[in-house]
């Protein structure tokens, strides 16, 4: 198992390198000087600017700059934020846990909804349940997250007044009150993201189960006298999940996109809102670092999917 994970890690290295090349090329191709914040700041004298250019090596050949940039990225030396005058890695470490929690919980919510609904829909295809579920799923993934977010705020915060619509990280309450407040303010961001995911996931689950349920081994399981419940849970779902895991992993970039939007709507202090703030304030080091971190997270989740894949399907050898 460890061996397998290690090999997958080795395969992930070229993609990480590829992503870093793409990122660096984008930065290098960009007209003007991305670090011009310091250059245009009138408080910075010309000599200091030249020294800074030299120190950052902005006048060296491109490949040297790339290698140096990559090295410092790998060592966790991500420069510092022009705006908040804090090291970028600290800034990101502050924000990352919130994002991971929101994304993680929304994925859990999505699975909890999509799996049972998708399986039930596929067990009785074209029944009224299937039709209604499929139509709702269709509507669900045609609704952009920013619109659902706004509708949720309108309904739950403004009309009903149940939930706060601005996420606060400075809740003063302690004990149960603290958890309750956090829970209340997390409901909307998590459900907006989770429902959107659940909609497309449900369609994957349904078609995967439909593919599996007609296979001979399922008939065999039934004719052995197993209960329908066992047949579905043990024989059908487990095999149907294999393609679903791949598709869900392929969706990860979209999930992070959705997280950026939800964090922006509900003012969740996560890595996505950090990115938007940095872009609106021309804070280049933060933008680069956040994009890099998000790329790494996507690759990490792909890796995780591979591991789950191996667990679901024993035919894939770990050797």
């Amino acid at each position, binding site marked *: 198992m460890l061996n397998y994970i290690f090999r997958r890690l080795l395969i992930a290295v070229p993609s990480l390198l590829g992503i870093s090349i793409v990122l660096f090329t984008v930065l290098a191709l*960009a007209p003007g000087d991305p670090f011009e914040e310091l250059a245009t700041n009138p408080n910075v004298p010309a000599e200091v600017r030249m020294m800074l250019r030299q120190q950052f090596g902005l006048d060296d050949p491109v490949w040297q700059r790339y290698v140096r940039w990559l090295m410092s990225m790998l060592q966790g030396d991500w420069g510092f934020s022009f705006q908040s005058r804090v090291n970028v890695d600290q800034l990101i470490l502050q924000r990352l846990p919130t994002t991971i929690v929101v994304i993680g919980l929304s994925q859990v919510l999505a699975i909890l909804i999509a799996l049972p609904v998708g399986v039930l829909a596929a067990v009785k295809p074209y029944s009224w349940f299937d039709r209604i579920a499929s139509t709702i799923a*269709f509507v669900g993934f045609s609704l952009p997250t920013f619109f659902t977010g706004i509708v949720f705020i309108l309904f739950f915060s403004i009309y009903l007044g149940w939930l706060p619509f601005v996420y606060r990280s400075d809740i003063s309450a302690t004990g149960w009150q603290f958890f309750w407040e956090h829970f209340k303010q997390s409901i909307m961001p998590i459900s907006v993201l989770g429902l959107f995911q659940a909609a497309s996931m449900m369609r994957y689950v349904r078609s995967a189960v439909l593919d599996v349920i007609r296979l001979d081994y399922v008939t065999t399981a039934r004719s052995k006298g197993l209960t329908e419940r066992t047949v579905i849970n043990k024989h059908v779902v487990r095999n149907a999940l294999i393609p679903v895991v791949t598709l869900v992993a392929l969706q990860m970039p979209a999930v992070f996109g959705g997280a950026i939007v939800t964090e922006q709507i509900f003012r969740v202090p996560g890595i996505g809102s950090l990115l938007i703030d940095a872009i609106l304030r021309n804070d280049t080091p933060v933008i680069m670092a956040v994009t890099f971190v998000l790329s790494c997270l996507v690759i990490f989740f792909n890796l995780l999917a591979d591991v789950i894949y191996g667990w679901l399907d024993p035919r894939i050898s770990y050797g």
Partner: protein
Amino acid sequence: MQDITQVHQAPELGKAVASISPWQEAWRRFKRHRLAYWSLWVLGCMVLAVLLGPLVYKIGVNDVDFQSRLAGPSLKHPMGTDDLGRDILARVLYGGRISLAVGMAAMLMAISVGVLIGAVAGMARGWVDAVLMWVTDLFLSLPQLPLLLLLIFLFREPLKQTFGLELGIFILIVAVIGGFRWMPVARLVRAQFFSLREKEFVEAARALGASTPRQVVRHILPNSLGPVIVAATIDVAAAIIAESTLSFLGLGFPPDIPTWGRILYDGRDYMDLAVHWAMFPGLAIFLTVLTINFIGDGLRDALDPRRVL
């Protein structure tokens, strides 16, 4: 090829058999999908409204009317007004043109790049294929929205200076959205090419001395178009969502150009006072995307010859 099909379509035993072209057959199958069929009508009406609406509906996009600020829907302003008293229907109609134009242009870009890369990979095989597929997989694992934001942040100003405000942003957004959506198409086309290039009719064309470009353009490509058309439909919807997401984050078109996402973005701060402001553009996006997705679903059924309908 021509002669063989002629023979097949000829009426047999004197009975007049009306010949049905593949497209007529696809249309017949498409109509079976009720939701897709009605979606086509709804979308058609919306496209017409967006194209012809501003010609009929005379209130200007930036006509300020301080007498009726944040007014709800009324006869004078069917969708109400915003905080400057600008008519929201006029803005939604105008914004629709931009959103649909971005969607179509980004789709064309994604499809052309995807077909090109998929076709080259499918015909060349060997190391060319390996490299192209590695690039495709790499692009698939890129976090798209952050990169979109990064690219727009870095390239907005220079393009604005070269092409002017509206056109510059339009080119940038279309190129960036299109540049991140070609991967599924490339994979589809490559897979189709792999199976089609070994088929007998292609072999026959090859035996008759058809050059590789001719084999591709005349024989392989037309037969691999079905899934590509479906992907193209879905891409239009995805591009519209991407554009409105960018506008919603305040990084799309500038504030004086009302796209659907931008109106929504402006309206969300006034949700307690003027619900209609954010609702109507949001509903426009939702309805467009929903109908396009349904049409894509219907096309999938219609263009898949293996499916019995």
